[in-house]
């Protein structure tokens, strides 16, 4: 299977089952397309009819033949026959999302976590529960050396004492069990100060800072209990944080909604504010919500991705590189096939822990009792549910079968799939469209930067 597209003057062919990416001119792309289904002589005839030089055609067809022999064009699908071996995973856990605070100092109406309470009671996780979670992770991680813990909420800074105690406790176990912990935290910035920045620089592998972009966009949703926007409070704090962060990892992470499908302008605003590591995500909400993206928004969203890709190329050329998370693509050192087939690992390698110690497949399922998988005292009490997640992979989604981007997306987000289709094996079609557009932009950037080098 091949996928061909043209964007920003680049003509690109993706060979789906080898992962090869070919950059051509327009006629080269046509030749590759014709060679997939027509005999060589007919291809030659068709290209001659386009007024192309016979010698050039001959050389191109030879090159295509060579790529075919090397297995880099029209590669067959040799993976699906091994699908069953990916369905027998053991469920070693390598990552936990610790919901240290089911409460928040902001009241963003678009929040998928229902203002941090996840459709339940406000609560803070005790150190006792957090400690059990670390023990649970170590005990269930098998041979995995790198373990991840994300402090999440709500607003985790409302329970910072427990965050610190948990980090200290986990670090004290690293040597004994031969593990290395990687901590991350997602914050809204209201309580951020120099002392916390210092601590994060020592202990947090990554810090995600929530900012939606332009002031009027950010303050539309991200307000405190009195309805006051948070932009003026957090932006100077984030700028100070980023200066002190040095070359350590962080992401300024925004949400775009029906009110700003032209989110490119928000990204540009973030760059103007001095931020260099950016992520911008479509809102997660029910279709009837006023903030939900509509069908009419999609062309604007796609245009925003294209504008963004061109803008990032220009910034790179000017020596001011900016990274946009969903355009990150390391073709030479990308994920292995195993990772591409099993996806994010929710419900198998990755679990969320509530303040009470209940276990869910991931942070987005928290609050839906039908997806409660167990708790820290008893472990997994719903082996049937765990089995459902273990058996969910790229090949279990029948609708992904003919999609060119499947080895980039791995079947998508389980929570989004369930929300959109009612089934783990279903898909979230609008999410697929957005993902494919992102990948075309990311591949175009790779081609453009390769040309540049």
């Amino acid at each position: 299977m091949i996928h061909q597209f043209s964007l920003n003057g680049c003509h690109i062919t993706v060979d789906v089952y080898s992962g090869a990416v070919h950059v051509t001119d327009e006629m080269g792309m046509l030749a590759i397309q014709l060679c997939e289904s027509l005999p060589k002589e007919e291809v030659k005839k068709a290209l001659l009819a386009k007024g192309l030089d016979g010698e050039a055609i001959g050389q191109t067809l030879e090159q295509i033949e060579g790529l075919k022999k090397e297995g880099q064009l029209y590669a067959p699908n040799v993976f699906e026959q091994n699908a069953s071996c990916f369905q027998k995973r053991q469920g070693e856990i390598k990552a936990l999302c610790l919901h240290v605070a089911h409460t928040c100092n902001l009241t963003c109406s678009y929040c998928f976590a229902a203002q941090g309470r996840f459709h339940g009671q406000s609560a803070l996780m005790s150190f006792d529960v957090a400690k059990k979670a670390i023990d649970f992770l170590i005990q269930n991680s098998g041979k995995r050396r790198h373990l991840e813990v994300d402090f999440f909420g709500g607003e985790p800074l409302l329970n910072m004492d427990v965050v610190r105690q948990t980090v200290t406790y986990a670090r004290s176990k690293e040597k004994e069990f031969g593990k290395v912990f990687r901590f991350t935290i997602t914050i809204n910035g209201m309580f951020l100060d120099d002392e916390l920045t210092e601590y994060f620089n020592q202990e947090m592998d990554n810090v995600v800072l929530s900012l939606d972009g332009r002031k009027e966009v950010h303050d539309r949703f991200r307000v405190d209990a009195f309805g006051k926007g948070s932009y003026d409070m957090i932006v100077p704090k984030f700028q100070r944080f980023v200066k002190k962060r040095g070359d350590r990892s962080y992401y300024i992470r925004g949400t775009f909604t029906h009110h700003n499908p032209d989110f490119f302008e928000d990204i540009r605003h973030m760059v103007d504010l001095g931020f260099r590591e950016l992520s911008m995500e479509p809102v997660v909400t029910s279709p009837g919500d006023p903030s939900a993206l509509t069908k009419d928004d999609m062309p604007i969203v796609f245009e925003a991705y294209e504008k963004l890709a061109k803008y990032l190329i220009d910034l790179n050329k000017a020596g001011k590189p900016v990274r946009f998370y969903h355009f990150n693509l390391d073709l030479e050192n990308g994920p292995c096939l195993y990772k591409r087939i099993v996806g994010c690992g929710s419900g198998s390698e990755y679990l969320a822990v509530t303040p009470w110690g209940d276990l869910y497949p991931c942070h987005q399922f928290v609050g839906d009792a039908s997806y409660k998988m167990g708790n820290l005292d008893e472990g997994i009490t719903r082996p049937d549910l765990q089995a459902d997640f273990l058996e969910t992979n790229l090949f279990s989604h029948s609708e992904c079968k003919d999609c060119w981007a499947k080895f980039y997306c791995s079947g998508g987000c389980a929570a989004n799939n369930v929300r959109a289709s009612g089934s783990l094996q279903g898909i979230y079609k609008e999410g697929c469209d957005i993902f494919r557009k992102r990948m075309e932009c990311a591949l175009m950037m790779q081609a453009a930067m390769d040309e540049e080098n």
Partner: protein
Amino acid sequence: MKIKTLKTRDLRDSIKNGGCGECQTSCQSACKTSCGVANQPCENKE
């Protein structure tokens, strides 16, 4: 007409040298709301 092939990790080779599981969970890295498996590099130096 010209065809340039970008340097890419071959998916089939990664059957043999992949699957160590030491890479970062994609959803933990930046977005928390939409998966980006391909956006996470492999961390196995081997």
